[in-house]
């Protein structure tokens, strides 16, 4: 009740301060009149009575002030007064205000934008119930590397564990899907029972898979994503009429997942894993593992549980199993993976940028504070307490920080809008990047932290030393030597921080240059890529003769398409391969192959497996189905032997071409040409292959990996198998658009059901480099911003110091100092700052850049070229920034300088 009264009365006073003041004045006046009247009644003359009454009351204005001073609203009032005062002062120095606000806006805006990404990708919990219980599961090999799950091993994990509420296997990949409004090549996921339960998500429409859909050769069924449902199924409520055709089978649509459900990332369709038979091999690591822990079970306990099962499998099956352990990792960590380092690097860089920005503004504040010492001394002399002074500085720094922060948030909003265009496609969870409450809280915290540190810092510096001295001292002598030293410290710190960011950017930049100048092993220009899926599937039938005819029809169709494409005017050469090398990273399957060395080829895969246990008979390579023209199109040179030729067809002895590195690795002292191998485990065809040629190396796994050993087989002998993403490569100097429209027509004629993805190799390569480019771009931007701020900081300190030393310079010149001496004197000041800052920065960088190691390629974390280059660059900028005031000092007229006050 009384609190309410306090509040409303205070508000009333705030609302109309004038009326409240008048009321108090009236009351005081009336009191005086009554007192006078009482004295007159007591027998005094009116004049005398008035004097006596006034005397008794004391100073009337003081009484009014005393009465007026009561109430909480006065604190606010004085705050407003300070605010008005601060605003007036800032407006009186618009240059200072604008530079400070823009600097802070840059720092706060950039950090807020980066924080929004970090928040979405690293900090925010996954959008599933109890996300901390969801884990990824792997088999682990004795050497510690993680492997996907083989069917029998997964079954053992699944049935023997007592720590998981759900354990599911899943796999995903691109596939053609027809049956919606148009055919698309899209990600489909094959998931075992328990998958949706592990994530804890129910379909938004329809249902999850029923038991009869989760058994061998059961009823096919598909669940689609919300996006697919909207785009290709017209968001129709009745799902019963939709049947999707994928890889030759028909799947009725039974459910739609809710909006935002995106696991595995990018999936549009989910189908049951149990429809297909299991592969009995314990080393066919085909499935990713996903699980939900039971209540009260920790990740460590679950891992111990699965490890024990893994060891048991190893003990029981020996050489038939290659695991002896298991790995269990929280899903959130597994999804983020190596992105963490990149994001933390960005956060670190932007944090340093914010520090540099603050140091700059602190420097400006210091300069102003020392110029304002007289004014402060007057305020203190008039009775302003220390608290009042601190309040004044805080109000000023808060005005700057809030203005800068508000502008910064606007910058961040713009940046977050623009982010999707520059964020690398493989950054997980980027759809969640937004300016939301946690991000705004971060910005707010940054604003308050900046305001409080700047305000207290300025107040501390202002109150340092004897303020009274400022009143008595001459204008020049009290520009504050200590303050100037302090600004120098700030600038040294700024230079050091800038150097760290610059070195980070330099290392990333050199890595990037190294990477793009690395030859992939072929020429990359003018290459158009067409990725598609074959309408005639491989392995769709269990009947060998119809399967053979399927492959033959597939080969026939490919031949037709390739012939027509070759006929497009301007097409120089057209090749076919089972995957695009380099760009997508790991599209090519890899595995163990068998060296026959004159032995009888294995009759079945059991025998194949036994033979492969003997290390002298086994080798490892990537597997690539290709056409003869593929090598010509990419410009992969034939080193020795021959290419695939016309004589190599379905019925002739099968041949293989190997890469140079495989020849060197596996046959160091022999001629590989003429050797017979069996790589039938890749496509299910046990017919052996004879090596007929050796071709140049290709960095098939990506530019940052060494050339991989590859075995190429002829598509006309082996066909495209299930793991391939058939890709046609065409070299042509003509505009891409012309070729693509011609090629589109050919595909429409010959394979109307096969969706094709047209692109250029440069484009695909760009996608592969996108995350590095993104990181480099942002760190580079931050480095440039920090460099600019540091230059301004150096300029500010040197210019201020030069101005302070005007008289000294005048004396020196009068005594015969040459202009060049003056120039050196002033530039020397900047140089001293730069040398100290660079030295500290280099020491710090030695420690900090080590954290970047995993992001570097071909450059060490302490690369001397980068360190030296950056140090020289920063020193040059520092000298340039101090040259400007130095030149001004040099041109001073000694006469004017001597009289300078």
């Amino acid at each position: 009740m009384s609190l309410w009264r306090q509040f409303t009365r205070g508000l009333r006073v705030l609302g109309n301060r004038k009326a409240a003041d008048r009321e108090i004045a009236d009351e005081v006046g009336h009191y005086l009149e009554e007192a006078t009247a009482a004295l007159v009644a007591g027998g005094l003359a009116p004049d005398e009575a008035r004097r006596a009454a006034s005397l008794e009351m004391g100073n009337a204005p003081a009484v009014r002030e005393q009465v007026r001073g009561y109430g909480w609203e006065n604190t606010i009032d004085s705050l407003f007064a300070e605010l008005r005062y601060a605003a007036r002062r800032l407006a009186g120095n618009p240059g200072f205000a604008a530079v400070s606000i823009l600097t802070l806006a840059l720092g706060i805006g950039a950090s807020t934008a980066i924080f929004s990404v970090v928040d979405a990708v690293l900090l925010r919990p996954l959008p599933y119930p109890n996300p901390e219980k969801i884990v990824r599961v792997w088999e682990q090999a004795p050497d510690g590397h993680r492997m996907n799950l083989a069917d029998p091993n997964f079954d053992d994990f699944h049935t023997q564990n007592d720590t998981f509420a759900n354990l599911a296997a899943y796999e995903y990949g691109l596939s053609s899907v027809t049956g919606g409004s148009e055919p698309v090549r899209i990600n489909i996921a094959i998931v075992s029972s328990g998958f949706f339960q592990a994530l804890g998500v129910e379909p938004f429409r329809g249902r999850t898979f029923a038991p009869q859909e989760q058994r061998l050769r059961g009823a096919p069924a598909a669940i689609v994503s919300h996006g697919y449902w909207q785009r290709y199924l017209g968001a129709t409520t009745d799902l019963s009429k939709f049947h999707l055709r994928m890889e030759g089978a028909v799947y009725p649509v039974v459910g739609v997942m809710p909006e935002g459900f995106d696991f595995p990332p990018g999936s549009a369709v989910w189908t049951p894993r149990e429809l297909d038979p299991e592969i009995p091999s314990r080393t066919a690591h085909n499935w990713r593992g996903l699980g939900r822990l039971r209540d009260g079970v920790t990740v460590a306990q679950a891992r111990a549980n699965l490890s024990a099962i893994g060891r048991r499998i190893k003990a029981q099956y020996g050489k038939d199993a290659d695991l002896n352990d298991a790995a269990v990792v929280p899903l959130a960590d597994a999804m983020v993976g190596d992105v963490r380092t990149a994001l933390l690097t960005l956060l670190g860089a932007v944090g340093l940028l914010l520090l540099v920005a603050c140091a700059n503004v602190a420097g400006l504040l210091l300069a102003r504070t020392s110029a304002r010492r007289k004014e402060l001394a007057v305020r203190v002399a008039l009775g302003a307490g220390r608290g009042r002074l601190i309040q004044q500085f805080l109000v000023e720094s808060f005005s700057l920080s809030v203005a800068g922060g508000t502008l910064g948030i606007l910058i961040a909003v713009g940046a977050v809008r623009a982010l999707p265009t520059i964020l690398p496609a493989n950054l997980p969870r980027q759809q969640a990047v937004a300016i939301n409450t946690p991000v705004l809280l971060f910005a707010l915290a940054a604003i308050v932290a900046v305001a409080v540190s700047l305000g207290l810092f300025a107040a501390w510096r202002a109150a340092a030393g004897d303020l009274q001295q400022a009143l008595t001292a001459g204008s020049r002598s009290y520009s504050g030597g200590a303050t100037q030293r302090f600004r120098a410290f700030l600038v040294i710190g700024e230079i050091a921080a800038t150097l760290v960011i610059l070195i980070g950017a330099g290392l990333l930049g050199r890595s990037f240059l190294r990477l793009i100048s690395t030859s992939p092993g072929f020429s990359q220009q003018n290459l158009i890529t067409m990725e598609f899926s074959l309408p005639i599937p491989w392995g769709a039938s269990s009947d060998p003769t119809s399967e053979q005819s399927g492959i033959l029809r597939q080969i026939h169709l490919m031949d037709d398409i390739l012939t027509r494409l070759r006929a497009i005017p301007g097409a120089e050469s057209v090749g076919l391969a089972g995957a695009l090398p380099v760009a997508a990273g790991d599209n090519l399957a890899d595995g163990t192959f068998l060296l026959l060395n004159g032995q009888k080829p294995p009759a079945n895969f059991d025998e194949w497996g036994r033979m492969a246990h003997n290390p002298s008979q086994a080798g490892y390579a990537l597997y690539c189905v290709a056409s003869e023209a593929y090598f010509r199109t990419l410009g992969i040179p034939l080193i020795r032997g021959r290419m695939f030729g016309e004589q190599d067809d379905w019925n002739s002895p099968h041949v293989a071409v190997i890469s140079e590195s495989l020849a060197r690795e596996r046959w160091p002292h022999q001629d590989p040409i003429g050797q017979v191998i069996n790589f039938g485990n890749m496509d299910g065809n046990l017919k052996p292959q004879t090596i007929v040629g050796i071709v140049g190396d290709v960095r098939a796994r990506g530019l940052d990996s060494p050339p991989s050993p590859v075995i190429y087989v002829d598509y006309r002998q082996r066909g495209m198998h299930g793991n391939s993403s058939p890709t046609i490569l065409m070299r042509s100097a003509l505009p891409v658009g012309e070729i693509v429209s011609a090629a589109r027509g050919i595909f429409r004629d010959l394979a109307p059901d096969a969706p094709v993805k047209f692109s250029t190799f440069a484009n695909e390569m760009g996608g592969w480099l996108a995350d590095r480019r993104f990181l480099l771009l942002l760190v580079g931007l931050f480095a440039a911003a920090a460099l600019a701020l540091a230059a301004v900081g150096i300029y500010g300190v040197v210019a201020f110091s030069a101005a302070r030393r005007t008289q000294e310079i005048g004396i020196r010149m009068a005594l015969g100092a040459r202009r060049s001496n003056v120039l050196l004197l002033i530039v020397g000041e900047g140089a001293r700052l730069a040398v100290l800052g660079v030295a500290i920065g280099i020491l710090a960088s030695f420690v900090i850049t080590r954290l970047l190691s995993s992001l570097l390629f071909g450059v060490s974390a302490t690369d001397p070229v980068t360190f030296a280059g950056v140090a020289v660059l920063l020193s040059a900028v520092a000298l340039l920034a101090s040259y400007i005031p130095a030149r001004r000092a040099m041109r001073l007229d000694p006469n004017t300088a001597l009289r300078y006050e």
Partner: protein
Amino acid sequence: MDELNTDIIQGTLDMLILKALSLEPMHGFGIARRIEQVSRGVFKVNPGSLLTAFQRLERVGWLNSEWRQTDNSRRAKFYRLTRTGRKQLEVETTNWNRRASAIARLLKAVG
């Protein structure tokens, strides 16, 4: 000549104001004079403290105020006890009496 101490005992001004107002509404000077007269000149009220105390007591809700004509037809701000103000006066009076008699006993014992 010794100056007589006419300061109001710390913390009792509020109680004196409430007491003065317990009979009838009064304006500031009236209250000051009443305190002076009733105490026979022992207490003299400082106008600044008095007017500030009015602000405080009004905010706390013990007093209400209004502008009215005085007997000699001047406009003055009159203060009146509220219900809670009256209760507060009782509380303060009891407290005071308890303490005053305690102090009196202590002084007697020492004397």
